[in-house]
């Protein structure tokens, strides 16, 4: 059995082999140039960009990459749900009473010619908030059988298309 000192000496000699490992040819000529180019360009510290590091993680550890992706998607979904909740709080749904007053905002094709031109397309314009709960000057009330006011205020009927009656 060899004394420990001998084994240690052998180990040191073995480790010294690593001194012979060299980088690719020309590396030590290019490195100073790269460093000086970065310094001249005023680059503070050219650390590896986060996306490069992230890419390396994705390449070498796809499971970690997938986990981060899942976390990201989860965060986005959570954000959307929080946003929707906030919108609902700001604009609560109409109560049943309010629901009695139809809010018509879409374009209507009138079929009843009374008071309006048949075949024409009209748009009911919502009253502005400032005019809510004020007496309305109603347009023809027979239109589609709906009472054409919405939460009070005046409603305008604007012709937006269609063909003129013959």
């Amino acid at each position: 059995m060899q004394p420990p000192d001998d084994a240690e000496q052998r180990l040191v000699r073995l480790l010294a082999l690593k001194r012979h490992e060299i980088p690719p040819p020309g590396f030590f000529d290019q490195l100073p140039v790269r460093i000086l180019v970065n310094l001249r360009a005023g680059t503070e510290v050219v650390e590896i960009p986060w996306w490069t590091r992230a890419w390396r993680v994705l390449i070498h550890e796809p499971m970690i990459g997938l986990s981060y992706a899942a976390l990201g998607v989860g965060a986005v979904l959570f954000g959307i749900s929080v946003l929707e909740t906030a919108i609902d709080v700001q604009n609560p749904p109409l109560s049943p009473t309010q629901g009695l007053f139809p809010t018509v905002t879409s374009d209507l094709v009138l079929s009843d010619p009374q008071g309006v031109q048949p075949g024409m397309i009209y748009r009911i314009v919502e009253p502005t908030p400032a005019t809510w709960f004020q007496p309305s000057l109603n347009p023809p009330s027979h239109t589609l059988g709906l009472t054409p006011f919405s939460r009070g205020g005046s409603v305008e009927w604007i012709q937006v298309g269609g063909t003129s009656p013959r």
Partner: protein
Amino acid sequence: MASPTVAAVTPAEPPTPHVEPEDASLVLRSQGGDLAAFDLLIRRHQERVYATVYHMTANHEDAADITQETFIKAYNALPGFKGEAGFFTWIYRIAVNRTLNFLKQRRNRTPHLSLNDIDFNAEHDPDLVALTSENTPRRDLNLTELQERLNTALMKLSESHRMVVVLHDIQGVPHEEIARIMDCNTGTVRSRLFYARQQLQGLLSDYLK
């Protein structure tokens, strides 16, 4: 005045040895924004800095990135360099800290190891010759395989133990210098070196018989 004939037969005078400016003067010039001086500092120390980082990370690309970052960081920090320690110690300390930070980040993923080539002189290295001599059963030793075994064994050491082995046994940095670089006392360096070598002897026992 010497005649041309005499001058022709007189052996040429040895060229005046080119005196390299010392680190301190190059640092002073670099602090004044002289990039040519800093270029000299880079060329003087890049191989040792790179080698240290490479032996710690076992990856050429990572070592190249960290070496570059080290010198850029050093240049930007030069105004704060007071010169208490030598430039060599100072730049090593930056490289060591950046490498340890990098390894901390890499700890959670499997490192991608790469092997650099062995230079041509390795075949004439007496230590290697002794390792592969006919008196040993390793004369058919494959160098690449040996490199891989060494790297794998080194990677099993803790980062602080590996750093001491790399600096002392591979780079040949004295204990006192390592203590200054790693900001610890010499006893700690010797202790880490002792335990690291013991661990390596166990891991590389078949190469040490």
